[in-house]
Every structure is written in C-alpha cells, then in structure tokens.
C-alpha cells in the first residue's frame, strides 16, 4: 500500500506536464546549467539588489571557469587506445580489456571515465560501476586493464569510445576519442547441449566417409528408372538408349546426415531485441552442437542459405554477431530443396507472423520448431503455438529449457516425426 502510494506520488512528481518546454529547459538538467543560472542570478542580484551578491557571482564564476577549463586542458594532452584479448568472444564471456593512455602534460590527469557501449562498459570486479581511472601520471604511458563481460552480441564499439573527465567539480566534462584498432566481435552465447543427436555414430564419422545406403555421393551401386527430380547428371545414357527410357545411376550416400536450420526472419524482425537475441542464441547453439557431432548443417535465413562446416564456423558466428533484422519488404520465405537434409529445425517466435508457413510446406522433412517466448511457458497461448513446437522462455531458465527441448528432440530422433511437448 505504502509502496504503491509512494510510486504514485513519485509518478505525479515526475510527470511531464509541459513536454513542449523541455527543449528550452533541459540545459538545466546539466550541472553547468545550474552554474550559469546561479552566476546570472548572482550578477543580476549584484547589479540591482546588493553588491554583496557580486561575491557569490565571483565564486560561482570561479567554480564554473575552473570546472570547465581544468578538464579541457587535461584532455588536451591525453591520447588513448583500447583493445581486447581475445578479439572474439561469446556473450557473457570474460575477456581482458586493455586501455593504454599517454599523458603528454607535465601534470597528472585525475578522475577519467571510459564511455563506451553499455554492453562493454562493465567490469566483472565492480558490477554497476563505471570504468574509471583514478590518475594518469604526468609524462607517462599508462596501461589500465580490467575484465569485461560483454552482455550482448555485436561488433563493438558501435559508437565512438571516449575517455572523459569532469574533474574536479563534475560540472563540465571534456572527452577525447579512444583509438580502437581491432573491434571486439561478440558472438551470440551458445548453450552447451549434452544430448548427442542420432545417426552420428558410424565408422566414417570422423572422416566424413560414405555409407552403402542409396544416395547421391560416392561410387554407383546400381541403376533404376528415372524419377522426377533426379539430376540429368545421374542419367545412365547407355542404358537409357538401350531401354528407350531414362535410367539413372544409384550412388552411395554420405554417412553424415544433413539438417537444415531455418531462422524465422519475419518473426525476428517483429520481436523485441532481447527475444531476437535469444532466437540467434538458439540458432547458434543448435548449429554449433550439430557441427561438433559431424552433421552437415544448412542454414536458412530468409531466402538466403549457406552450408556450415567447421571451416566457416567463425565466419558464421561473426555473421550472427553482426546480424541485423532486414526490412520486412526484403523478406521472402526460404526454399528447401532436396538437399535440405533429414530434418528442419525452425527457430521462430511465438508471433503469429511467420515466413516459414505450416508444416506442410516442408514436404517429407521432419520439422522441429524451437520458439522463443518472452513470457513463461504456462502463459503461452495454445492457439498461436504450433502443436509440435518447443517453447524457450526468454529469461534465466532459457538455457535449461533449450537443453530439455533438445534432449527430447534427440530422444524422439532428429529425423523422426516430432511430438509436441
């Protein structure tokens, strides 16, 4: 009751009754604005009321001038460079951050603060505190280091990193841009999935060999009549001429299974950034896990697709780090061909706007839907969520939920018909 009342009082007191005036009075929100106002008021009082106010005007002016000049002069002699080791990491992974500052002045600089993107402006040892430097001695090259834990994916810095100081009074800050030679690439965080997908235990797993099952690779095992969809390169022309019907080769199949993972781009565009990040985390987790178990992964994002393997994993993760939702007009449904693999994992959102269509659009392929959900699973609306979808609630339990969904998918068989949880 009291808390609610306080909240109401606080809301009433913070209510913006005249937003049109903000452009004229927002300068008063800065300390230098108070100083200017106090100086002007003191000056006017000195002129029209009492000469004693000149004393106040003098003090305020001195504070203002010192408070503005000191930081400005201090930063004139400061140069800095920011770097990370390593330069690639996953979200919430701890990395070393190094800031090298050169002070060319014969006097120290005090009270400096590093201003960068929120995701990288933190230090593990002092959560919630700014990254600040107590002192850069005169005529020195100083190296500052701290442990950073990037909170969200991206290529940093997204905006200029600045070294600022408002010492001594904090009423006016002066800054200098820090040089960044190599950006920091923060990949989406991957969840460690424990269950091993089926059909990965053949003898050729490690070397990517072939199995005796009929497929499109390796040596030919026999011939059969042509079926719609067979490649013309498979036609056995001699037998075809002899039988006057198209006859094609039957070849060996690969021991490694293929799977397609599709990201629902339209849903990613419409959901919140946090939910979008979770979609990418699910995508990255599945793709990495399958790659580690020698599956061939084909990734579909919108109408674009690419085959993933260990050689281009870093490039793939970089793309995920930098991925931004395209405009809706550019979105087209993905095309799953015959090479789409034994199953298709769809990473989507519980928004009822999908470019991926219903299950029938995927033909005979097995569909596994992993859907992120910003509320709890219990709150999920059954009419929106497809029957065979796993719901990954966005939050602290998302890791465990993804692990459980994957475990169930593995138990059912990646290539088998999924049963909705």
């Amino acid at each position: 009751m009291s808390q609610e009342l306080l909240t109401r009082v606080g809301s009433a007191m913070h209510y913006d009754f005249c937003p049109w005036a903000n452009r004229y009075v927002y300068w008063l929100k800065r300390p230098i604005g108070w100083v200017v106002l106090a100086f002007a008021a003191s000056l006017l009082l000195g002129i029209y009321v009492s000469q004693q106010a000149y004393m106040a005007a003098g003090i305020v002016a001195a504070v203002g001038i010192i408070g503005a000049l000191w930081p400005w002069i201090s930063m004139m002699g400061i140069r800095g460079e920011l770097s990370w080791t390593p330069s690639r990491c996953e979200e919430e992974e701890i990395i070393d951050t190094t800031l090298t500052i050169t002070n060319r002045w014969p006097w120290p600089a005090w009270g400096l603060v590093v201003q960068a993107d929120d995701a990288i402006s933190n230090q593990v040892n002092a959560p919630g505190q700014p990254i600040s430097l107590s002192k850069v001695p005169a005529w020195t090259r100083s190296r500052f280091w701290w442990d950073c834990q990037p909170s969200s994916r991206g290529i940093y810095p997204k905006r200029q990193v600045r070294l600022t100081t408002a010492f001594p009074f904090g009423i006016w800050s002066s800054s200098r841009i820090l040089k960044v030679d190599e950006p920091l690439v923060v990949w989406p965080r991957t969840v460690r999935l424990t269950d091993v997908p089926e059909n990965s235990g053949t003898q050729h797993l490690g070397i990517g060999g072939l199995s005796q099952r009929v497929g499109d690779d390796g040596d030919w095992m026999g011939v059969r009549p042509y079926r719609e969809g067979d490649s013309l390169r498979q036609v056995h022309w001699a037998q075809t001429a002899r039988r006057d019907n198209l006859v094609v080769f039957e070849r060996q199949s690969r021991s490694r299974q293929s799977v397609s993972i599709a990201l629902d781009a339209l849903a990613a565009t419409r959901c919140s950034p946090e939910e979008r990040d979770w979609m990418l985390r699910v995508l990255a987790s599945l793709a990495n896990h399958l790659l580690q178990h020698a599956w061939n992964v084909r990734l579909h994002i919108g109408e674009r697709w690419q085959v993933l393997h260990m050689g281009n994993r870093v490039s793939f993760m970089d793309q995920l780090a930098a991925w931004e939702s395209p405009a809706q007009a550019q979105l087209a449904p993905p095309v799953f061909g015959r090479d789409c693999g034994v199953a298709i994992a769809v990473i989507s959102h519980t928004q009822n706007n999908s470019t991926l269509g219903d299950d029938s659009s995927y033909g005979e392929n097995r569909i596994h839907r992993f859907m992120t959900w910003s509320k709890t699973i219990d709150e999920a609306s059954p009419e929106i969520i497809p029957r065979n979808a796993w719901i990954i609630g966005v939050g602290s339990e998302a890791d465990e939920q993804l692990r459980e969904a994957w475990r169930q998918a593995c138990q059912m068989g990646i290539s088998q018909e999924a049963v909705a949880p």
Partner: protein
Amino acid sequence: MTTRIARVNGNSGKNRTWGTLVLATLASFIILLLRVQGTATPTWIVVETFAVILSAFGVRVWMNQRSQESLDSAEFARLRMILLIAGGIVILIPWLSKWTQTRLLGGTGEATELVWIGMLQYAALWFAGGAYQPRHEWLSFLMSCFLAIFGLATSDRQGMIQIVGPFAIIAVWWLMARYWNSIEGGFVASENIPLIRMRLIILLGMGMMAGIVLWLATSAGRETVLLDGFMPTSGGKQRADASARQGVGDGDMLVAARDEAYTFGAVDTDLFLDSEVPSMYDLVSEIYGEASNKKRKYARAISLDQQVKDVDREGTESKKNSREFSALRKPNEQSQNFRPEGTDSRAIVQVIGRTPAWLRLETFDRFEEATWLQSSSLDMKKRNLEPELKMIQEKPWFTVQTVSGELVYPVRERLAVKVIQFESPRILSPSLLTHIHIDRVDQPDFFGWSNDGQMMMPNREHVPRLTIIHQLTQIPSLHSLRDPTSPLSHLSHTQAGHDRSGDFLSHYLQIDAPEQASAAVARQWLEQAKLVGSRATDWERVMAIVNRLRSSIQLDASSVPSEDCDSVVSFVLQQGRAPDYLIATTAALMIRDSGIPCRLCRGFLAKSERFDYRSGQTEVLPEDLHTWAEVYAHGMWIPIEPTGAYPMPHEHRTWWQWAIQTAWSIRDTVIRHPIQSAIAASLVALALYFRQRLLECQIGLLTAMMQWMPARTRIRWMLGTLRWRMWLWDEPISQGATVERWLTEQLAIRSRASRSDAETFVRTVQGLAYAPAPLQQRTLAAHGHVVSRVCWSLVASGILGLLSPRRSSSSAKPITLN
C-alpha cells in the same frame, strides 16, 4: 614502471556523508539571519529553525545506521512514506507558524516572502537529513546554494559573509567529493611507464634554452650577476675591485671561501705557512700611524710568556698584539695596504649578521702618559665564566657570559665571523657575547679569556684562517638605565653606599693626572645641560657626554697632537677635530670623571655600507679598524660610540619607548635650536594655512607638464584638475548642474580666458562628451589652438592661485552663453 592495483569498492550505501546536511545547515543559518531581521519575534524563528536542524540531524543519524539495500527495499516503503509526510509538515512549519502568530496570538508574524524562503530552508534541511538517493542530496545542495546566494544578496549583515565563506568552501569540496564518489567505485588497475624519451627531449630543450639565455646574458656583460657562486678565477680583467663578486686575480692562492662566509676549502698549503697576513700591531701602525717615541718618565717592564719560540718565528715576533696603545701617534701618510701575495682580497674578516657591528678585539683599562695600557694586575680570566658546553640543535655551543636580563632584549641575535686574513688568537666579538660555536669544536679548552676580558683561543698563535666563528649576542635594552625610579639607573661608583665589591672597577675609573683638569670639562657640560644631581640618571649623563662629543668633535685622522702634548683631552676639545681613538679616549676619561667605569676598546666596525646583499655578508677591511669605548653597567659592558661619524650602537626599544625618546629628542632639538625650530614651525603652519593654494600651485605645475599631450588628453586632464580643485576648496557641484553650466562657471572663476575662448572650449568639451567620433575629431582639429589657450590660462591661474586671496564660489560671476 609502477603498478597499482585498484581497490574495488562496492556501492554499499555507507558512503553517505554529512556534507549535504552541513551545507544545508549553513544555508539555514544564512536564512536565519535574514528572517531574524524581518520578524518581531526572533526567538520564535530561532527555536523553530534549531528544532528543524536537530530533527534533520536525527533523521540523518537514523538513516546512516541502515544499509542502502534496506532503504531501497519494499519493507522500507512505509517508513519512507512517514518521512515524506513528516517532510511535508516540516516544510509547512513557517506557514503554520505565521498562521499561529497572526490568528491565535495576535502578532504580525513574518513577511510572506520570508515564509516562502523559510519553507525552502526547511525543505533543504529535510532533504539533506532524509536523503537516501543521490538525487535527494543534489536537490538539497541546489536549494542550499540558492538560499546562500539569496541571503547574501538581500542582507547587509556582516556576519553573512562569514557564513557564506565557509559555505562556499564546503560547497566546492562537496562538488569535488560527489564527482570522486561517482567514479571511485570503478577504478581499474594500472601500470605506468615513464615517457623517458619525451622527458629527455623536454629536458634537452630546456637545457638548450637555458644555454641560449646564458649565452645572451653573458654576451651582455653581466658577469657579476651570472658568475655568482662560481670559484673565483684569475685573469681576464685589468682591474680588480675588492667588493667585486668575481675574484679576478684572486683565488689562486686562497680559496673560494672568500666569497661566501659559510664555505671552506683550503687549496694551498701556503695558507698555513708564514704569510703577510697582518696582525693588530701592523694594522694599528698602518691605519693610525706609528706611535711617537715619547720619553717615559718611568721604565715599564713587560713580561714575556713562557712559550719557546722557533728561530724562524723570531722575525714575526713584532706581530704579537701589543698591550699598550699610545694616543700620541704620527700622522698616517701612506697606506701599506697589506695584501698577501696571490690575492687581491683585503678583507680582515667577513661577517654575517646585523650591521653595523662593533667587533671588539682588545680593551684597555689604564691611561698613563697618553698611552692606554692593559693592567697586568687585572686578571679578567677569574671574573669571567669558564666556557660551558651546551648542545643547541645538536651543535656544540659554549656559554661564555651571562648578562643581566633586565638590561638586554631576551631574544639573542646570531652573528658569524669568518677570519680571512688576520693573525691574532683573539676572537672578534661584540660586547654582549653570550654563546660561541665553531663547527665540530666541542672541547672547552679551545676557548678562554684574555687578561683584559676578551674571548680568545689560548695556546694558539692565531685563530686558524677561514674559521667560521658563530656567536650569539644580546642587544642592550637600556630603558631601565634611563628610568630614575629603576634600581639599575645608578652606574656611578663614587657615590656613597655603592657596592664596592668590584674593586677591579677602580682600574676603569683611573684618570691620569694631566688629564683630570680637562676631563672635568664634562662636569661643566652636564651642568649646562642641567643633568647634575638627581635630575638625571647616570646613563643620561653618559649619553649627554657622548652626544656632546659626537656633535662637537669632528673625525679627522690627520689631527694628531704633537709628541710633547700633555693632555690629549685638552687637545681634542681645543681642536674640535681628532681621530676616533682620541675621541674615544676623551669620552672614556670624561665618563670616568663622572665616576662611571669606562674603558677603551679597539677592534673593527663592520659597516652597513659594506654589506653585500647577494651573499648576505659584510666584509671588514683594514681601514675599518676602529676605537670606541664601553661603559660598565651592572656586570656588562655597554658599547658607546663617541665619534659622530659613526652610527650609534643598536639598542632595543619598544614602540612606546621609541616614541617617548623621539619626543624628547625633538624637545632637545627645539631647546638647542630655538630660532631654527621657530622658523620651521612657522613654515609648517603657513603651509597648512595655505595648503589649498600650495596644492593648487603644484597641480598647476603638473598640468603645465601635461601640455605636450594630445588635445583630447589635455581636456580630460583639465576637467579632472578642475574637479580636484573644487574638492580642494570644498566647493560641491551644484545639484542639477550641466557640463556647460559648470564648466562655464569654473572657467570664469579659475581662468583668465576670454569669453569667446571659454565658449569655444565649453562647446569642444560638450562635443567630446556627446558628439559622434568623426565630429569630435573635426572639433578638436578646428579648435585645438583655443583649447591650448584655455588650458594654459588654467595652468597660469593654478600657479598664480598661490598668491590669490581666498575666495568662495559664491562670489564668482558665471559667464552666460548666448
């Protein structure tokens, strides 16, 4: 490379400080002063304010006992609600108070604007006391600053500034602390690598700049300044100056120690061999001339000490200090200028300390047959203290004398004497020497007393050259001697009942028979000055004799008596000119005639004019050999200077004593020179009476020198002097007067300018005051000659105003412009 690991501070909420509340309290005091002025019931306001201050402090104490987490928690919401309601009530107190006073008690209460200010005052206090988030403290800080500025601007009470000053200091500190608190939690580890290369470049650059400056300066010929502190070198100049800072032609045989009294560094063993360094005997012969060979009536034997002399020292035997000093000497015709080979230094000693300083070397007690003698029967060794070791600031000092505390200023002065080239075992020292110190010398047998009571280094040929002798001396404070009621005022030893225990003083009262009659002239002087009997103290008599000698006897080294002169005192008084030793002899004998023990002293006078401000020391040259006298007063010898060419010894006086003495001196001057005094007083009175005319005349002369300035400047100067002259004559500018009217009136009164010139001048001035710049230039160009005429007329009237009769502005007849 230095490494620092940052200390990680969590934001525990315990960093809430009292600064905001202190600021709010100070601002509250400022407003309290304001409100107290504007109310009929100040007690009510004071009690009310202090109650709120105490409440705010109580809340602050309560809040500080809780962690930030608990204050932010939902459980605390109820208490925060109570705080909010209580704050609202506190803020409304001034309004409630006024309502109570006006409606219930029938009073007037505070003015409405003060009620509003009071509400803001309590709001600032309450926010400071109950702040649990930074923005609360900021809000309180802003309100406090507003209140401080408002209070300062709207009150004229002096106490306001005394509160606003600390408020401003604490506010600035508060701002700094807030900024530092906001960032200190995130300080990160660091290591620093000095930019050696950059520093080297800077240092090299600075070195090059210094080199250029040095080169430029040396090329300008200012070697004297630039070579200060360097070792003196030979050659390079054709002339040498004893006072020069550079040791041209010096330093080869001696050491750099000549330049600085506190340095030492012998570089040549010849220093310690026989040299031409003068002894006292040599100096006396050089400065005062050889003693006359007067045939003595009685033969006198001088005992030799038991020290075995080496053969090669026999030649220097004559350099031993003499124990007699003849007052009959031949005129000194040529100076030998003792100067050791290889050096151009003529300094005997160097002195650091107050100058002038009378550095005593030997004293004489008996005067027989025109010769001063040191009585062999007078053994002052027994009367003086044995040097006693005393560590002062871990340095070995020896206490050598204690003096009467009532006759000296308690704070001792320090003096350092460095022996440069002088051969004597005696230590040059002032009369009131109390402590002595030579670096690292901690054995008492290094110091002793001579028979005549002079500090010396016994069993030594002489004080080692370049020795620095530190001394503590006391300054006489002789007010008690001038106070007739003081028991110390009696110095005479011929009065009945005087303590005769000091029989040795009889040596200092002896007057040779031929001199007695002449010395008795002193009595006539004292009678003339009406200082006999109980109307004056003994010291006043001494000073009367000294002052009479100082004023009547001129210093003349060539005025020496003949060999057959019987009375040197008579000679001095008759001639009216004499060398210093004869004047001192005369003074000593005259003072003895008054029954006051006195003795002759010989030594050196460290003169102020030889003080070198760059090294802070004073050189003493052979020609500074000096003779003076000392008067015995209650166990101490007080120097007196009877030679008028030399200054009087320093004496400590309080301001009051100085004022009284100055007044008496003026009185004495007036009595001695009544006609001159009367003329001077009349002139001063006339100057005061005609002060306006004199000042006007001076302004006129000054204005005349301004006539070469441009016309615009001259006009401004003229207007300024006109206003100044009006102030001088106490003529205020009439109310509502325009420039035209005022200037026209002033020109009519103070100048002889023609009417047309005056009109033109007035118009030119108005043009300068009000017309645009191009027109001003044209006006000045057109009327420059008129301006000159009027200005000169004003100058002439100012100068001639000295002779004009006194007049008033009302008698002036202003010119009216058509």
